[in-house]
């Protein structure tokens, strides 16, 4: 295929992926909006409470536009989104964008650290188990992964708090920072560790890092269990391939066969697994955030949902959708880098 045509095809494919973003988001907005309207909770209750007299309820209904027909309400919502207005959260009184800008960095910081730990350890354990299939190492890794899959997060979170916080006193308790550092670090990026480092406030930095250890460790444990199992499965398939037998026959070292040949071929499916896991973590791990009083997106979304705060629910859902779409796009780009056949 001529090079120019190849490049044009690649760009065309990328453009098609990019064009799918607004369509995906539109679909997401549509589904979330209508689900939000059919749940058996009166959204006015969230605004005025249970006791408000009829005239206050009626006024709030008009102010929220709930007296309009559903298609009109959706159109109004869409036009607001396009102009960057996600509405105001009933729960926090802030514009939803402001809330998301404040809650998302907390989740981002937690999820990113968790996925780094999970990817490094998960891939390592997966490869180790695959290369020693059937041995006690393999069995141990499988039991470890099974535990990661089966132990409920609230159990693990509370046990971790009990052991490392209450008994041993090695790690701090719930929250993103200690009382003495509260309101001390000027938010710039919203990532507490980065903001503390930028402010040259190293005690606050270490405090933030220590507060991250437990929730990130627990999220990483769950994620690495999945990543390790998938890595093991992908690696076993590759190690049974004929090209591996050929490489062994040619006398290549085991490490070279495993890492340069077999592992490279597992990268494309592994990228999918890791990015999907990362997207899941960015969506917010509600139970972990609840146990560790972590003011993240998952907790925001859940509390908003329980309070029928529909602007917040819709805004946060759109952001979650956007995260999936963007990470999907990144994964697509990575495939092209990792595997020439996908270009």
């Amino acid at each position: 295929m001529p090079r120019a045509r190849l490049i044009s095809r690649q760009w065309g494919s990328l453009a098609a992926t990019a064009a799918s973003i607004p369509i995906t988001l539109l679909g997401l907005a549509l589904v979330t909006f209508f689900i939000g309207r059919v749940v058996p909770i009166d959204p006015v209750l969230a605004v005025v409470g249970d006791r408000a007299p009829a005239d206050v309820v009626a006024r709030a209904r008009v102010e929220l536009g709930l007296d309009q027909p559903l298609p009109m309400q959706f159109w109004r919502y869409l036009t607001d989104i396009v102009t960057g207005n996600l509405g105001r959260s009933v729960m926090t009184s802030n514009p939803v964008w402001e809330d998301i800008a404040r809650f998302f960095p907390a989740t981002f910081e937690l999820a990113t650290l968790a996925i780094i730990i999970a990817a490094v350890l998960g891939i390592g354990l997966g490869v180790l188990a695959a290369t020693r299939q059937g041995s006690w190492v393999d069995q141990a890794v499988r039991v470890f992964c099974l535990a990661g899959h089966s132990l409920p997060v609230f159990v693990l979170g509370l046990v971790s708090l009990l052991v490392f916080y209450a008994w041993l006193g090695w790690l701090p308790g719930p929250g993103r920072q200690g009382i003495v550092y509260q309101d001390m670090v000027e938010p710039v990026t919203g990532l507490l560790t980065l903001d503390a480092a930028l402010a040259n406030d190293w005690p606050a930095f270490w405090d933030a890092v220590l507060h991250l250890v437990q929730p990130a460790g627990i999220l990483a444990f769950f994620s690495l269990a999945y990543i390790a199992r998938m890595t093991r499965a992908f690696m076993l398939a590759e190690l049974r391939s004929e090209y591996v037998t050929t490489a062994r026959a040619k006398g290549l070292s085991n490490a070279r066969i495993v890492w340069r040949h077999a592992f490279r071929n597992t990268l494309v499916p592994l990228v999918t697994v890791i990015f999907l896991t990362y997207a899941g973590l960015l969506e917010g791990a509600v139970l972990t955030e609840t146990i560790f009083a972590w003011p993240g997106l998952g907790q925001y979304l859940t509390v908003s949902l329980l309070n029928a705060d529909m602007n917040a629910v819709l805004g946060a859902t759109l952001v979650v959708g956007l995260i999936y779409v963007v990470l999907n796009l990144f994964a697509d780009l990575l495939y092209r880098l990792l595997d020439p056949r996908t270009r």
Partner: protein
Amino acid sequence: MTTRRTLLTGLGAASGAALSWNTVIRSAQAQTPPGVIVMAKQLDDLITLDPAESFEYTGAEISGNVYQRLVSTPNDDPARLIGDLAESWTAGDDAKTFTFRLKTGQKFASGKEATAEDVVYSLQRVVALNKSPAFIINQFGFNRGNMAQTIRATDPRTVVLTTAEPTATSFLLYCLSAAVGSIVEKATLSARVQGDDWGNGWLKTNSAGSGSYSIVSWRASEAVTLQANPNAAEAPATRRIIMRHVADPSAQLLGLQRGDYDIARNLASDQIKGVAGDSRYTVVTQRKAGVLYIAMNQKHPILSKPGVRQAIKMAIDYEGIQSNIVPSNYAVHQAFLPEGLPGALTEKPFKMDVAGAKRLLAEAGHPDGFECSFDFFSGAPVGDIAQAVQANLAAIGIRARMLPGEMRAVITKTRARGHELALLRWGSDYFDPHSNAEAFSMNPDNGDDARNKTLAWRSGWEIPELTARTLAAVKETDAEKRVDMYEQLQRDHQQQSPFAIMLQDVEVAVVRSGVRGFRIGVLNDRTEYASIAKA
């Protein structure tokens, strides 16, 4: 090869690393500093800090500590009215004109003295904004059109309120003592008005009060920080209160045990039991102005029969449910006015009597019982209580179909009169008996499009006689006679109503030893921080 020297060097390095790691950890760990009280609490109900708008538990509690009102009630004698900003008050002969004389030297956090102009601005602001709690003030006939004449200052220390109808003084004063009656600083708010919002946009997250504390910051679902008002008439014992949102009760308990929190506000019954005898903690309890009850929709042909209603009330094992499921967080209570409110009735005419309940059902024409739906909030402990009630009803032949739901969904359904049986909670809006009397025993219009959708309306209970008596009680100007009227009203209500009132809320806080002076109020806006002190 590993020699003894390399082994010792390795061990030395490892212990050094462990020691420095431990040092880093301990230095970074939070301990509550002197002069600061850290409270672990579920803060996710907090949606605004503007007292003219706030109507949730946490918002009311904060307002009570950040703002003064004209009058208040002390926690050690909650029925007694005392001046807060007001030094004295008089009622006119017509029972429509009320004159308040303000104290001198009451200062806002800004340092400016509170005047009659601030009081008038605050009350007019409530009327004009007309947010959820405004009805507490507006029910006296104030509105945007007449507020300039009915809420006015005659001099810098005198405020005159004119009600539309003759009003019991205690009724007006109790209503003014609610969080919505908080006095804000006019000068601060006027500078922050946007359009027609009376400064509401700014006051949602800030404060302009003359109470013991002012608000430093509120980060939703994270923390609220309060700072002592340097100009408060009585300086609070603690300079800073930090309320941290900790949703999980177990995490609250662990933080309390570690010393990171001084007060834990949302522990579960078993956790409270676990620390109750421990000398390191003090358990602070207070009956609250909230009741848990079963509503029976009178549009249901069977539930509308008086015998069936009584049978249901007799089927419930009140004591068993309280002692087995919620020993710390609820107390048995069977009247609509909870203990602690003026006019509260402590009589408990109902106890489980399966044979008697079955007999009543048979007399009502249902010897084999019947089937009906049962809505309830699925969260703990209400879900567990609902299951116990279902078992109690099953014992007399009533087959309750359980419909667990999210709290707002259950409320939405009962507001539309879509329930049959429902297990619900009701908290008093303000300190006066009328708050609950209006809800439980008034239904002036039973039509589907009624303006006033009281609890009686929601259960379709048509009660012209009780409605008239409730209206008479609220207008009674003789305070003692008024209390008698409410007590009699409740006795009749207990026997006739389609409500099986079962339990009263009990709030329990666990406080570390060395911390004293934390007092929980009957209403949330009465919970006091000013006297909390750390040894």
